[in-house]
């Protein structure tokens, strides 16, 4: 099993672990905040501690929720819409499709084969939006399907291969896209 998959599986199992109240070490809140913003990565020891300590995980989730709320507030104050409207062009199948209907971000859908079975989703955010980001981003459609997740790079860009059976262009016929804090 891939180490990352194993870690995610372990995290899912331990999320249901009852709190025994035994926490010889504690994770610093400042450290958790840094991890949430993506400025640092937790060390393997800190990750292990997080997996073994339900209260540390609860603190992390609470901080994450607060950060997401702050992010939404910032976007609202700046009048930044989270919806990305687009009506899919019917005649495009094997060429890249650009969705630049949002003033602060562009989504590009790249077909990786002629059959339309594999795709890459590319997101570029404006400098203005990038400056507001407290952490990573998620791009979802109104049907709840995750298109992209992660932190934009120094150029404000983020890419991910499409991992769903239905083509993204088909989804665009029925659903609207939106961004969310990670």
């Amino acid at each position: 099993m891939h180490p990352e998959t194993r870690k995610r599986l372990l995290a899912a199992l331990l999320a249901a672990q009852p709190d025994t109240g035994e926490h010889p070490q504690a994770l610093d809140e400042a450290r958790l905040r840094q991890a949430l913003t993506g400025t640092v990565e937790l060390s393997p020891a800190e990750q292990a501690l997080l997996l073994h300590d339900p209260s540390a995980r609860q603190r992390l989730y609470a901080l994450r929720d607060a950060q997401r709320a702050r992010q939404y507030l910032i976007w609202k104050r700046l009048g930044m819409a989270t919806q990305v409207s687009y009506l899919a062009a019917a005649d495009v199948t094997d060429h890249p499709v650009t969705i630049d209907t949002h003033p602060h971000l562009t989504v590009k859908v790249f077909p990786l084969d002629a059959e339309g079975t594999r795709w890459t989703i590319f997101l570029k955010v404006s400098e203005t939006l990038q400056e507001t980001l407290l952490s990573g981003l998620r791009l979802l459609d109104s049907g709840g399907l995750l298109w992209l997740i992660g932190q934009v790079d120094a150029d404000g860009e983020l890419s991910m291969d499409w991992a769903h059976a239905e083509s993204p262009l088909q989804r665009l016929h029925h659903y609207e896209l939106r961004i969310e804090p990670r």
Partner: protein
Amino acid sequence: MNCALNPAKPGTPARREVLVEFPVVGGRTTTLNHVRVIAYPDSLERVVSVPASRHRSRGAKAIIDNARYGEHKPEVDMDVVLHFDNQYFDGASFGLALALADKRARHGLAGYQGRLVATGVLGPQGAVDPVDAFVLKLTYLEQVLNPGDLFLYPTRNTTRGDSLAVLQRLRQRDIALREVEHLAQVRDLWQPGILQPRTEEESVMVERIGPITETKAFEQLGILVLDGSGSMSETGISDQPKAEEVNQAVRGLMSRLRNSRQRENFLLAVITYDHQVDTGRLER
């Protein structure tokens, strides 16, 4: 005569895909990894997409910037998506492989058409710098390369006697070898750019003719007349200001047209109005 001035003209493939392999020396094992680059000739926004790897993305973009140094539009702006077979590796010796895959995918293959393996660090402006553990890599390649394969490596890695001995054995097995100091030395591996005509005569011809535009079957003008009055700041049906809703709708229309195969056939004008005219905006 080379008059292929418009890369998006009919007959141009929607995408070109090129794979170049490179050796990776690990702690316990040496393996072959590969980078696959897909280029989109009619998508010219200079996107370099490296899915799911922010760390790898930074290095790859720097390499591609160096590899494309001195190139002209439109090829230099061509969008590419690149994937590594295994993205968990360190070091920069994949630079030459990535640069070759990027060049061949964007410009099209030329010359050698078979399996291509390369190692080399790509420096500023396309210089090819030496790699670490070159002899280890050569020793591994001796086992996995086949007659007819092409292997490219930095010239500056060939100063040691032990590496020369392995290279000699590879040559004896009919494996094609090329030393590289600069990417320009292997430009025969991709098609010449549209602004790099083959002969002086062609160069003069291209300058005289200029860009060629195909005849349009139809041409449509759309004039959008948008309400710019104060009421547009009121909330619309999506809980956003009406102005924002209109803005998104207009951008949606423009985006749809831009992605149409017949995008060159549409012209758009946008006019806004208010309840009064601002004469300060009129040309006197």
